[in-house]
């Protein structure tokens, strides 16, 4: 929106765009637009993709930040071939040991697809191998310059921290902090790890608080580190007194006031576009959503205590008034009313009317279907919502798995199999989707032959995948669910052998579980 208001709609840049490009617009939520998103594998917005007449991707720009003049420079650079993806790719072939060039290209790749960072990671590994001491070149990090090797190690650490499943580990980023105590990227590393420890489950319990204390001590003036400590404390119901101390230290944090001060200062500087960037409609929308979350949490808390219920209901309704189209708040309100024994009220806020107008997206429909199926009420409408979600996103593995879950909750296993059964794995060749299928049915202890077929197929498709150990661990889990203990043992051993040291403890625990089962069976 801001991109449109400040850049596209500004006559200062309009003529340039019109003269130099053929302009095409793909709106999300529109049938044709969604097809274009899919065709070019684009997820987040805003995103600008530049393609030549032969369909080759020349470059891209992800996101928009004011001032528009600075953004215009980026667009002009694309036209002039300054550090575009095309130019960097060609140059890196001529100079394969130029680490600054490789770092720029790696950043381009992770900008193109921030979720699947394999191509960027391969380049970062190359940089570390070429220049282990970090002396051969620098790269930009915000307004600073850091060595390419340092940046590459940080990026690889981030990739492992955000990896899927059991590949996730904080160790590489912790090693980064140890190796580069004066790094300009240090605070970002602390921030990522703090966020990880705030929400990561079980196995990191011991080290989490130790790290979060360290982060707060290092950055005492930054309320976000305290917030992460408080989140961990609440999630694990541990160190509560210390959590309260931390929360008290956060009192000064009021984002709206900070934004107001910043905007006023930018205005005094004469930079209204920057004021607009920090104090925008989007920012206020975020504030409204945050307030709605706060109101909904307040209502859930008091409902749990069975106290202050009139006030809780009032706040719950205010949350819906603030965010009428958000399925999360409607679901929370419906849960609130079901707990209060008021089914009619629950249906009023999150009933069949919600899935009719305005038409919600697949995610909202899934939320609706799962909510009612798990509460064993309003089932017909829940099934209809799930069918609509499937029609909207028929190829999405997550939607199919959710649909299977919903229909199993409704005791309609045939329907679940029809949607997410053997026919599905025949058309699927994504190893993670197949492995997810195997894990899902293993968890249900149903459809196990097909689950095994999928989990095996996943391992055969993944010779070069960084998720190999995860896929073998999935296969072991399916074998275990099917009672094939020897095969489970072999698969788990394979997972352990392929592990790069990030999940050794987890796989060893799984291995022990399988060995215990084998022993138990032998005793019988």
């Amino acid at each position: 929106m801001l991109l449109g208001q400040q850049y596209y709609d500004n006559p200062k840049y309009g003529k340039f765009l019109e003269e130099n490009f053929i302009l095409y617009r793909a709106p999300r939520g529109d049938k044709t637009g969604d097809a274009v998103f899919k065709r070019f594998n684009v997820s987040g917005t805003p995103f600008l993709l530049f393609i030549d007449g032969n369909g080759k991707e020349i470059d891209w720009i992800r996101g928009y930040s004011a001032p528009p003049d600075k953004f215009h420079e980026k667009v002009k650079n694309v036209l002039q071939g300054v550090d575009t993806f095309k130019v960097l790719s060609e140059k890196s072939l001529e100079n394969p040991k130029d680490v600054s060039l490789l770092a720029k290209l790696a950043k381009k790749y992770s900008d193109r697809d921030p979720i699947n960072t394999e191509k960027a990671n391969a380049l970062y590994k190359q940089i570390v191998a070429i220049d282990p001491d970090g002396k051969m070149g620098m790269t930009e990090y915000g307004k600073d310059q850091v060595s390419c090797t340092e940046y590459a190690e940080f990026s690889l650490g981030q990739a492992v921290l955000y990896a899927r499943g059991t590949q996730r580990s904080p160790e590489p980023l912790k090693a980064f902090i140890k190796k580069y105590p004066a790094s300009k990227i240090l605070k970002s590393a602390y921030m990522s790890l703090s966020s990880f420890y705030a929400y990561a489950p079980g196995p990191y319990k011991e080290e989490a608080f130790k790290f979060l204390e360290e982060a707060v001590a290092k950055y005492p003036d930054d309320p976000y580190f305290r917030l992460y400590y408080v989140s961990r404390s609440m999630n694990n119901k541990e160190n509560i007194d210390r959590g309260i101390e931390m929360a008290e230290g956060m009192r000064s944090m009021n984002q709206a006031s900070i934004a107001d001060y910043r905007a006023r200062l930018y205005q005094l500087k004469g930079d209204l576009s920057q004021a607009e960037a920090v104090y925008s409609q989007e920012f206020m929308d975020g504030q409204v959503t945050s307030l709605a979350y706060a109101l909904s949490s307040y209502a859930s808390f008091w409902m749990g205590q069975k106290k202050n219920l009139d006030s809780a209901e009032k706040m719950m309704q205010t949350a819906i008034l603030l965010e009428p189209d958000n399925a999360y708040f409607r679901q929370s309100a419906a849960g609130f009313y079901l707990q209060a024994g008021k089914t009619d009220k629950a249906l009023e806020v999150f009933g069949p009317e919600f899935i009719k107008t305005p038409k919600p997206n697949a995610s909202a429909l899934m939320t609706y279907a799962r909510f009612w199926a798990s509460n064993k009420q309003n089932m017909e409408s829940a099934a209809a919502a799930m069918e609509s979600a499937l029609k909207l996103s028929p190829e999405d593995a997550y939607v199919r798995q959710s649909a299977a879950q919903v229909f199993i909750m409704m005791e309609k296993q045939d329907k679940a199999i029809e949607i997410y059964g053997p026919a599905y794995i025949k058309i699927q060749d994504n190893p993670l989707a197949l492995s997810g299928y195997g894990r899902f049915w293993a968890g249900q202890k149903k459809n196990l032959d097909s689950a095994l077929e999928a989990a095996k197929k996943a391992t055969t498709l993944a010779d070069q995948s960084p998720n190999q150990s995860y896929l073998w661990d999935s296969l072991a889990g399916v074998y275990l669910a099917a009672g094939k203990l020897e095969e489970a043992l072999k698969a788990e051993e394979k997972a352990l052998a392929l592990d790069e040291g990030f999940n050794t403890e987890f796989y060893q625990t799984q291995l022990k579980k399988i060995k215990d089962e084998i022993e138990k069976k032998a005793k019988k």
Partner: protein
Amino acid sequence: MKKAFIFGFVLLLFAALLPAQTWLTGSVDDALAKAKAQGKLLLLDFFASSG
């Protein structure tokens, strides 16, 4: 004279309200063909109305 002035002003106002550029929608392949024919790059703007 006054009428002509008002007419001119309305025209100017109308021009200011016109969209700054022409954005194609529909077939991307048609847009690509147009880019090829004119020797220009195709700029695809992926956007969501909420953000």
